[in-house]
């Protein structure tokens, strides 16, 4: 019997395990499906990780190793090459590993499975089905882990960060990246990546465009790209053909939650992650969730912060601090697509509440407004907001405790 089982040994799981340990939990196990800890960070060999957390620019593996090193001299047990097959509401965990199929019991669980990439099917790109169509992360794994190139003439659909990073990486490896094509009128990635990965290499970015046809019987031979109207429908007559052998898809990430759903944990259709309280607890008391399994983050630093909070909360739970009872829901106001947490325990002892969310359009000078049935509770000015950049506000918890529900909204700052 473990005090805490952490599902996933990527950045979220590592930070949660470490903070639970430093908060007094000793019997911890991390269950990781890969042959090493670090998760997707291991294939992210570019720099830019850790600016917030460590005030340094690290590569993905370096960032992971900061945490792996911190765990070295602890009692935290790591089981690698171990896939969790099933979790029950009673916190039994069925695992598969070459040394045995096993059942683990734990007082508390942290779900830190990360996310997966949206695929061609999710966006129904018409055409043939040749080889050479990859999700950007799969191409990244081939290149950075196996030393294999996805191809030599590349079009990238979607301007998510992995796609942008791969545009640069493939160019540096000698491929010709012909275009990055984005359906929306704005990029889905961080501004710094647009500049450093596209502009610096003269790779054209086509906003409000999409891939309308995939060609090739065996290997990809080309794609057609067209401009889209305001309803995101291709405009006839705007087609451009690209001769390419590779199409990378960077069209979004989806929290990985098969285990969560199978365990009967309440899910939020807006995030595709579990509903969580301010302490990252899910609808099953003692089961916490953090990182990209809850909502997709822009920066690993934020994943670590959120997961540390989950680890602290799991430690408190194991020590006997139980929540439950009434909760105050957070609601989407105008231009807000989701919030994390989705609920606040009324009996929480936390002094401040961190709220994360995304907006659905690009704002310049703008304002975030927190309100309840009685009016505005707090507001925050922002010089710039975009869907590609997660927003974070901190609200003193005592300001929220009297509310029936709390609404987060975003607006242009015209009044000021």
């Amino acid at each position: 019997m473990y005090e805490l089982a952490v599902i996933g040994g990527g950045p979220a799981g590592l930070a949660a395990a470490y903070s639970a340990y430093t908060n007094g939990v000793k019997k911890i196990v991390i269950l990781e499906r890969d042959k090493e800890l670090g998760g997707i960070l291991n294939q992210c060999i570019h720099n830019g990780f850790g600016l917030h957390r460590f005030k340094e620019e690290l590569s993905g593996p370096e960032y992971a190793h900061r945490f792996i090193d911190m765990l070295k001299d602890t009692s935290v047990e790591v089981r690698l090459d171990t896939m969790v097959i099933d979790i029950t509401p009673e916190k039994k965990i069925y695992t598969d590993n070459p040394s045995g199929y096993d059942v683990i019991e734990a007082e508390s669980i942290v779900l830190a499975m990360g996310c997966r990439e949206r695929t061609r099917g999710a966006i129904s790109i018409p055409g043939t089905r040749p080889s050479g169509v990859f999700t950007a992360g799969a191409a990244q794994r081939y290149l950075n882990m196996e030393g294999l190139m996805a191809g030599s003439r590349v079009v990238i659909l979607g301007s998510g960060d992995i796609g942008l990073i791969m545009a640069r990486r493939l160019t540096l490896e000698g491929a010709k990246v012909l275009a990055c094509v984005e359906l929306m009128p704005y990029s889905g990635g961080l501004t710094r990546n647009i500049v450093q990965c596209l502009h610096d290499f003269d790779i054209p970015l086509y906003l409000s465009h999409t891939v309308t046809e995939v060609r090739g019987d065996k290997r990809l031979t080309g794609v057609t790209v067209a401009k889209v109207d305001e309803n995101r429908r291709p405009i006839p007559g705007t087609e451009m053909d690209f001769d390419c052998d590779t199409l990378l898809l960077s069209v979004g990430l989806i929290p990985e939650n098969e285990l969560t759903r199978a365990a009967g944990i309440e899910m939020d259709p807006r995030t595709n992650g579990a509903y969580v309280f301010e302490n990252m607890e899910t609808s099953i008391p003692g089961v916490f969730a953090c990182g990209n399994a809850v909502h997709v983050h822009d920066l690993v630093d934020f994943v670590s912060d959120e997961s540390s909070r989950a680890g602290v909360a799991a430690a408190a739970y194991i020590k006997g601090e139980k929540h439950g009872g009434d909760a105050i829901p957070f609601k989407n106001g105008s231009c807000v697509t989701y919030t994390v947490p989705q609920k606040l325990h009324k009996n929480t002892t936390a002094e401040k509440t961190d709220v994360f969310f995304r907006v659905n359009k690009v704002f310049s000078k703008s304002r975030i407004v927190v309100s309840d049935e009685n009016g505005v509770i707090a507001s925050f000015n922002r010089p710039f907001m975009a869907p590609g950049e997660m927003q974070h506000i901190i609200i003193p918890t005592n300001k929220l405790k009297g509310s029936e529900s709390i609404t987060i909204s975003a607006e242009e700052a015209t009044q000021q």
Partner: protein
Amino acid sequence: MYDVSIIGCGIIGSAIAYELSKYKLSTVIIEKENDVAMGATRANSAIIHAGYDPLPGTLMAKLNVRGNALCKELCEKLAVPYAQIGSLVLAFSDEEVDTLNELYDRGVKNGVPGMKILSYDEAKAIEPNIADNVKAALYAPSAGIVNPWEFALALAETAVRNGTEIMFNSPVESVNKKDGYYEIVCGDKTVTSKYVVNAAGVGALAIRDMVLPHSYDSLPSKGEYYLLDKSEGDRVSHVIFQCPTASGKGVLIAPTVHGNLIVGPNSVSCEEGDTSTSADDLAFVRNSALKSVPSTNFRANIRNFAGVRPNTSSNDYVIDCDDGFFEAAAIKSPGLASAPAIAEYVVDMMKQNGVELIEKDSFIDTRKHVRFKELSHEEREKIVKEDPLFGRVICRCETVTEGEIVEAIKAPITPYTVDGIKRRCGAGLGRCQSGFCGPRVLEILSRELGLPPEKIEKDKTGSYIVKKRRT
């Protein structure tokens, strides 16, 4: 010299090979692609039709109904995923209710067991998500769903276990009648055999024209589909059809044996071998399906695909023979359901036409397929102890272990491609569409086959996945 060469290793060629492997014959299957089931068999509705559609008196009617029963038996015997879930044909107007009655009468004449015409209330009671404007439905309990690739593979594999040979990557260029035998030229190879069976699917007419006078025309067409995530898998629990029209049985909605929901097909004329999808065609499929089951959630789509159809100007299957050249051609829908009965029929025809068929003393007629996902906790514990490779899950979405993949590679018909593994084990079939397991499957294939990664292909020959990084 072989006794028999079978051209084509789709469901028909495989079923005939299986049937012939019961007899003391030397048989070779000649397949143009690099795996079993690469044509019409790989991309269809995966339905074992009950048999009320074909006109009474046709070969199609007779072989569909007989085949339906045989499929069930064979799938059980050869460990092929199959479920007899029954089908409903929905009628939305009084004219369509007339069509249901006509189908019912045809079904009775064809010998389809257990059919019933259901009222709206009765249909809604067993299938709650059908549209509110349904007037009535034809229920056929013998309809089923199957994994068509594995069905063909299981039949071909059993034939191989019983001595049949297979040649892949061997497109037939000519079939020449010699003195008492045939000479088949396929690429750099030449095969001679006493008898030839043409089971080449969409390519069957081209083969026929090499031997016999031209007598019917190919009308190549395709059908496009959606495959929805398992979250939609229980949207319906029967195969849901609409009333058939001149162009086919129309858009259906059905659960798959893997737990997904399949929606399609349309029917579009195309160039032979075209399996592309188009946005307009998919929109048609989507809108047609929503008429039957309005709550179908197409946002759960994980894959679109199109399948080739061996349609011809002949309304019925063309199964005949001429001087040692046997033909099972124009096998359009319900060809999958008919396949085992077509095989029986062809073998019987061979017997009638002088092929000496002596039963083997021993015939291997079982097949095992371990599916880790379907094992109990105790069984999983045991198998991992016996073979640690079952302790490593490669495909998270479908819970497929390395043990299963290595077993598939070591089976009598070796898969050389990532899609070959997908068809055999289900790895990559799920919601992440091989984003996670693709590189791992490639690595296992490369290791087990002793081939460098850049030689491992996705699907057809020429569909390489990665290139060597420049050094």
